[in-house]
């Protein structure tokens, strides 16, 4: 059933347990890079243009004008409403993710300027439990909508998520309508939203806020699908197209406005902020 896809991405993209594959090997052309090389290249392969996942703080540093980012709600943390236990308790997974990523949750929010234009930011981090959306992601995103509305600044979101966070059960599903309602309030207040879809944006995040920007930009090669390729394959036994669910396919099928290489994102977003900032 399709619902299973919401979290499968997290596991698919995690490094194999035995660590065979070096995390900085380009999956597209097999070039090898040190962290610092990739970091200075915005985590884009200089050989083939493959976009590696980019961590939230690096993303923010890249997108925003130096020193303008003021983080909000950094101290909001998940609870474990279901006492969820699979191989380990959910609370243990959370603590581990925080230790591993240095982030309290899979989203970082706050105010900044981009190319001199004020905006509110909501940037996801796939490294935190596969960017899955639980109560905290929903809450922080919603507060970012409110803050954008209050400040009269557009909201810029960057999504990277395997979908809803299974460990919070039905409450994770409720983050879909929660973020949708927050955007509805933002729109009613005359606000606007630019949504950037990074690899991967799937499941519940694609099926909620990431799809509701006034403008949708995708990074090259980003998977944007509701159901993951594996689930589609297993459910339908169809042969999948080569570019199934990728940004380029989504552009062709009318679901995003542009595929924008990472180095061009700050200028593109700045231009859009300018356009949305001067309505009557």
């Amino acid at each position, binding site marked *: *059933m*399709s*619902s*299973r896809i*919401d*979290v*499968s991405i997290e*596991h698919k993209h995690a490094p194999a347990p035995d660590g065979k594959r070096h995390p900085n090997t380009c999956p597209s052309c097999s070039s090898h890079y040190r962290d610092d090389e990739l970091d200075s290249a915005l985590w884009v392969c200089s050989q083939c243009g493959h976009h590696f996942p980019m961590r939230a703080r690096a993303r923010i540093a890249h997108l925003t004008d130096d020193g303008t980012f003021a983080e909000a709600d950094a101290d*909001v943390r*998940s*609870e474990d409403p*279901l006492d*969820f236990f*699979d*191989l380990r308790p959910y609370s243990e997974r959370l603590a581990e993710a925080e230790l591993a990523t240095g982030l309290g949750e899979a989203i970082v929010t706050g105010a900044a300027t981009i190319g001199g234009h004020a905006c509110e930011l909501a940037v996801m981090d796939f490294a935190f439990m596969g960017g899955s959306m639980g*109560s905290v992601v*929903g*809450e922080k995103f*919603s507060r970012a909508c409110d803050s954008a509305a209050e400040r009269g600044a557009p909201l810029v979101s960057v999504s990277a998520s395997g979908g*809803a*966070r*299974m*460990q*919070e*059960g*039905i*409450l*994770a*599903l409720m*983050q*879909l*309508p*929660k973020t*949708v*309602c927050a955007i*509805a*309030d933002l729109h009613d207040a005359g606000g606007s939203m630019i949504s950037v879809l990074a690899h991967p944006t*799937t*499941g*519940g995040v*694609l*099926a*909620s*806020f*990431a*799809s*509701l920007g006034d403008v949708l930009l995708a990074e090259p090669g980003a998977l944007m*699908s*509701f*159901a993951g390729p594996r*689930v*589609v394959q297993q*459910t*339908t036994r*169809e042969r999948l*197209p080569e570019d199934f*669910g990728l940004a380029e396919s989504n552009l062709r*099928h*009318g*679901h995003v406005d542009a595929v924008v290489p990472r180095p061009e994102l700050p200028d593109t977003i700045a231009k859009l902020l300018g356009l949305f900032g001067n309505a009557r």
Partner: protein
Amino acid sequence: MPGEAELRLRERLTKLRQMRLLGGANLQGELERLQRQLDRIAAEPTDEEIWRSVELARHQDRPYTLDYVHRLLDDWFELRGDRARADDAALVTGLGRIDGRTVALVGQQKGRDIKERTKRNFGMAYPEGYRKAMRVMELADRHGFPLVSLVDTPGAYPGVAAEQHGQGGAIAHSQATMARLGVPTVACVIGEGGSGGAIALAVADRVLMQENAIYSVISPEGCAAILWRDASQARRAAAAFKPDAPHCLELGVIDAIVPEPPAGAHVDHDEAARLLGESLREALDELEGIPGDELRRRRRAKFRALGVFV
């Protein structure tokens, strides 16, 4: 029963009463059913009870959307097509009357026999289905018809064409459409409330759930496949993420539980429909006369309050 569990029970009962638990049941003359339900909810549902809900929610004799439509709505007229590409039979929409009042209805429809199941894709809609639903929601809004939504789907269809046609975006926009409506909206999960495919139709002023329905972010099999790489661990998964009605009520995700006949909705469609009809009527009555702006404000505030964090 140990003291701590009793305390928890009492707390929950208080909470449930505040939340208009069993709002669907007419308290006069329904005390017996109420008692039975209270008994059921009194104890933390066991893993077995949760699994029984999963089985009943998917029972092949369980009433489907059209079984209720034909019992509850007068002058039913089905509205078909997304006005763009297709008419998705997995999701039915239409107009009808409840107590003389015109309502618009949307809901997934599974099939009873193999032929109908194929035609209706087992209740798994394509984006075309959700776009049809949005069209009918907007029609309801334009004409002031309350919207009733019956949720019963394993999930939105996961296929190549469905993805190409924008399944994720369609689910997002369907929710956004519901968030904008200025008419009363009542949703009820009548079987499987499967993930995004379910919430697309459930951003409502009142969200009800039948006693043996399930509502979940993932299917038990899907969850098990991920956690234990073994879909047969579905029962264990269900116990972990608790998709049953009492837990959904406890978490504030639904507003009330709709009673079913003692052995389950599948044994007595007429009685199940009567009970559902009472709940729908009560919910519609409560919402009648509230201005559109206020409905929207409360609806959004309700969903924006969902979540547990510190």
